[in-house]
């Protein structure tokens, strides 16, 4: 009797997790550009995986430690991997969607580049003199 209740609780938590994973994959399909896809993918997959593992914990309570380590691992690695993917995408100039409102990083880089170009010019002028 007791184990049955635990199994039902664990199963429902795991199902909630898989629903989040499903929503994440729908997000991957619907979002317009790489960055928004990464947004949907990262968040949904993190909570989805955590909930699935929690559900498993209710079914196999003796594996508590291993699930804790797994959850910690997912929490640490997931944001890092998505950050690296997005950064790489930005550096090879994967285009942003047309809906994009503002791109501060580009502005910053343009400022930096114009400053560098200016410094180069000044240096050349000084060497010329």
């Amino acid at each position, binding site marked *: 009797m007791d184990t049955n209740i635990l199994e039902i609780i664990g199963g429902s938590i795991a199902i909630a997790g898989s629903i989040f994973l499903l929503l994440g994959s729908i997000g991957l399909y619907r979002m317009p550009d790489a960055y928004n896809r990464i947004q*949907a993918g990262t968040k949904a997959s993190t909570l989805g995986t955590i909930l699935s593992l929690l559900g498993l914990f209710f079914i196999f309570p*003796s594996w*508590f430690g291993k699930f804790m380590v797994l959850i910690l691992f997912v929490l640490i690695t997931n944001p890092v991997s998505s950050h690296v993917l997005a*950064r790489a995408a930005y550096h090879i100039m994967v285009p942003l969607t047309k*809906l994009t*409102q503002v791109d501060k990083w580009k502005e*910053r880089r343009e400022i930096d580049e114009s400053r560098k170009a200016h410094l180069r010019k000044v240096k050349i002028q000084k060497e010329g003199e």
Partner: protein
Amino acid sequence: MKWKNYLIMFIMLFVFWLLLNNSLEKEIVLLGFGISLVLPFLLCGKCEVFTNLSLSPKAILYSFLFLFTFLIALVKANFDVARRVLSPSLPINPGIVEVKTKLKSKIGRVILADSITLTPGTFTLEIIDDSIFVHWIDVQSTDIQENTKLIVSQFEKYLEVMYG
């Protein structure tokens, strides 16, 4: 200073050992204790990653509060994504905004960037000096101060005490 780093590394290794083994038998605990006592000296020269980590009671309390805030933000983030994905009009308003951080230590910044990534509608693209470039799915303003308040400050106040 150096001993604190070894102590943190030892605690982490020992807790991991206990979690993985999942038993409190005498031999297993003693073996893990011995191994995690020796390993920090072999593995890390100075373990500089932990230098800024504070071990005061306030910092430990704040790390629990931080974890709590973070988990709430994570759940919120998921419902946010679910709402955006499921609504037929796809209500997104994306852009890359700049925010400033007051944190100085490397580990503090890493954890801040990771938490930004897992909170509603934002993820970290790049850190240059003290400015973080964040991709935001629903841009509300382009002002640096305002965005800092909206995105960063909820975690920063805890991380400041924990890592400085």
